């Protein structure tokens, strides 16, 4: 049966940010433009505002995180919101009811915005169903499903450094099966009308029917990187992997590691992005991660602005 999107209101404005899947290009551009507005031109400094003064944001992390949680916290502080950080280790017994109870309690504590990371796909959707109409939810990563703010900050970074998406060939390399980042990136790149989207990895690390998402699939890194303008490297998500997906030893780096040799197949000055944390010598040659075309640290800074943009947008939409 037809169901409306759980993250849009009746005027098609963002009510929660749960996934890129189902958004429009206008939604994305609105967020990217808003994020751009938080930078002081030329200096690259992020401004501070009192947009969310008096609001409380709960960072609800059921999985360990450093970068994402810190940048959400900084973003909230830049908007003058109070931040409540909760790191809840996801034990096998902390199932649905406790997640729901946690959320309802935080709601009772007058938190207006939840940032949630959880090991189960669909967790942010579940939380969005439980909260009252005055609370907004941002998905900061759920299982292997989605990590929309990461994809948005990647789009922001690509737009900043390379401009027009239609001219770009983009390759996503590595463990796409377990990657919520890759799924959100693919949807975002589609919406931004990227010239070509490629996925590179062994079949054991690629989800079924990936090509039906509009992606060209390659199993050979050199072939897949030929003529690309942007390389999105992924980390091997060993914490989510089952045994037997890859041979033991260093075959992964040998076949899918981004090295000077394989990088030479891409277009000159190909942009290299990585959601972090970078595992040097596992998926990427160490000095490449530090090269000028690798904008991995710029992504981190952009992440603050993107999260400020999403937070302020959701709170605006909630009030109007």
């Amino acid at each position, binding site marked *: *049966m037809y*169901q409306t999107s*759980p993250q849009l209101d009746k005027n098609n404005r963002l009510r929660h940010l749960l996934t890129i*899947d189902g958004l429009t290009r206008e939604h994305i551009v609105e967020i990217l433009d808003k994020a751009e507005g938080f930078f002081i031109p030329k200096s690259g400094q992020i401004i501070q505002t009192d947009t969310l003064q008096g609001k409380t944001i709960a960072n609800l992390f059921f999985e360990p995180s450093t970068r994402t949680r810190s940048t959400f916290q900084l973003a909230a502080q830049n908007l003058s919101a109070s931040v409540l950080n909760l790191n809840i280790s996801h034990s096998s017994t902390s*199932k*649905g*009811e406790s*997640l*729901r109870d946690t959320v309802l309690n935080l709601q009772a504590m007058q938190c207006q915005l939840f940032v949630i990371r*959880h090991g*189960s*796909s*669909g*967790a942010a*959707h*579940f939380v969005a169903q439980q909260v009252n109409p005055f609370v907004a939810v941002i998905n900061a990563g*759920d*299982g*292997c*499903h*989605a990590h929309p703010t990461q994809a948005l900050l990647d789009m922001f970074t690509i737009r900043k450094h390379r401009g027009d998406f239609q001219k770009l060939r983009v390759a996503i390399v590595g463990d796409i099966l377990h990657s*919520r980042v890759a*799924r959100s990136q693919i949807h975002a790149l589609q919406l931004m009308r990227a010239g070509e989207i490629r996925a590179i990895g062994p079949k054991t690390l690629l*989800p*079924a*029917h*990936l090509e*039906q*998402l509009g992606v060209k699939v390659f199993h050979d890194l050199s072939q897949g990187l030929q003529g690309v303008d942007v390389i999105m490297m992924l980390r091997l998500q060993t914490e989510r992997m*089952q045994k037997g997906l890859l041979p033991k030893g260093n075959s992964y780096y040998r076949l899918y590691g981004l090295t000077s040799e394989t990088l030479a197949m891409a277009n000159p000055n190909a942009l290299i992005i990585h959601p972090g944390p970078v595992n040097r010598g596992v998926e990427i040659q160490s000095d490449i991660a530090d090269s000028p075309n690798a904008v991995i640290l710029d992504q981190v800074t952009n992440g603050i602005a993107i999260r400020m943009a999403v937070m302020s947008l959701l709170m605006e939409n909630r009030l109007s």
Partner: protein
Amino acid sequence: MKIAIKNGRVIDSANHLDKITDIAIDAGKILHVGPLPANFHPTKIIDAKNKWVLPGFIDVCCRPQMQHPHGSILHEEALAALKRGITSLCIPPDGEPIVDSSANALRLIQQGSLDLPHLYPMGALTTQLAGDAIADLTALANNGCIAFTNAQKPITDLRMLRYCYDYAASFDLLIVIQPQDAWLANSGIAHEGLMATRLGLPGIPETAETIAVAEHLLLIEQCNVRAHFTCLSSQHALQQIAHAKAQGLKVSADAAMHSLHLTEMDIATFDANCHLYPPLRRVSDRAALVQGFASGALDAICSDHRPLDSIAKLAPFGDTIPGLSAVDTFFSLGLHLVKEKQLALEHLIAAITSRPAEIFNIPGGTLSLGARADICIIDPDTYWVVQEEKLFSKGKNTPFKRWELPGIVTHTLVNGNLVHER
């Protein structure tokens, strides 16, 4: 008690009967089908004008126990089934306690009563369903078990499985198989396809079902055992069954009613009520399952009823307990397919009455003279909207909320007793 049912459209697939006429019931049996004999003086007359008079439905896979510690008792779920026209329940052995001993089989049967559907336990194929020792199958059979199955705990040791089938074949016992390869299904949650890819849910490939079907069919052939496959979910599995039937193997098969309606597309918003086992598969699989009755690959439709309490589905999709509450929507969903001309009425009726009776050797599913008077009367043209408060089952875990469905059961008779009247 003598009961007359008058002017109803009487449909009995076992006798290829479909006409407007009367039925006389006496001493719990069908006394007569046709204009009432002059010397028949009923104590109750039911006017079935504009209604359908059908054999009571036989649900070949129903778990009337609530699957959560503070759930309802079997009695309430069986009653819910009755109010939806189901007069016989075949119950897999994986409830609490596991039906792997005569005592446990009797314990289940003794929960039945005259005003409930007939309860038919299936016995565990192996002790505690652990897959390492054959249960005392003949003792279970002598104490009311109609078939034997390891339910949703597939036996991974094929040598053990072969022993089970050889043993069952020695006594002409029926095996029930829910095919799923434990390794391929592993920790999967949704059909391995585009939707699971989009949602980032661990997949259960189609081969988890088809490889299991192939394995079982080879052993069924070798052991020459009677077997029934339950809750099939894929087109390829149906082709395998059709091929086996053509070869002359003693096999039959069913699909769950919900799988004739829902597909992987229905999990798009992480509706935990669509977290089911086996998983909802492709649009093409659903279409093939519906066509399976005309082609003869499928024999029966089960409800796969598994009522859960409200907590069971209150979690992110993959952390919820799979299963749906299904008796309430069982017949209405079938009738919906008939009204949409996807399924022939005679195929629907046969799949929930006469075919299950034949496969499981249950004395019912027909309106033949002298047959047990298990009957339901349907108002086929009244629609109802599926809402929690309209469900008789204590399990509100239905994926069909807000669906508008045809068919209201106005009367149910078990053993000639009027046990439900609306």
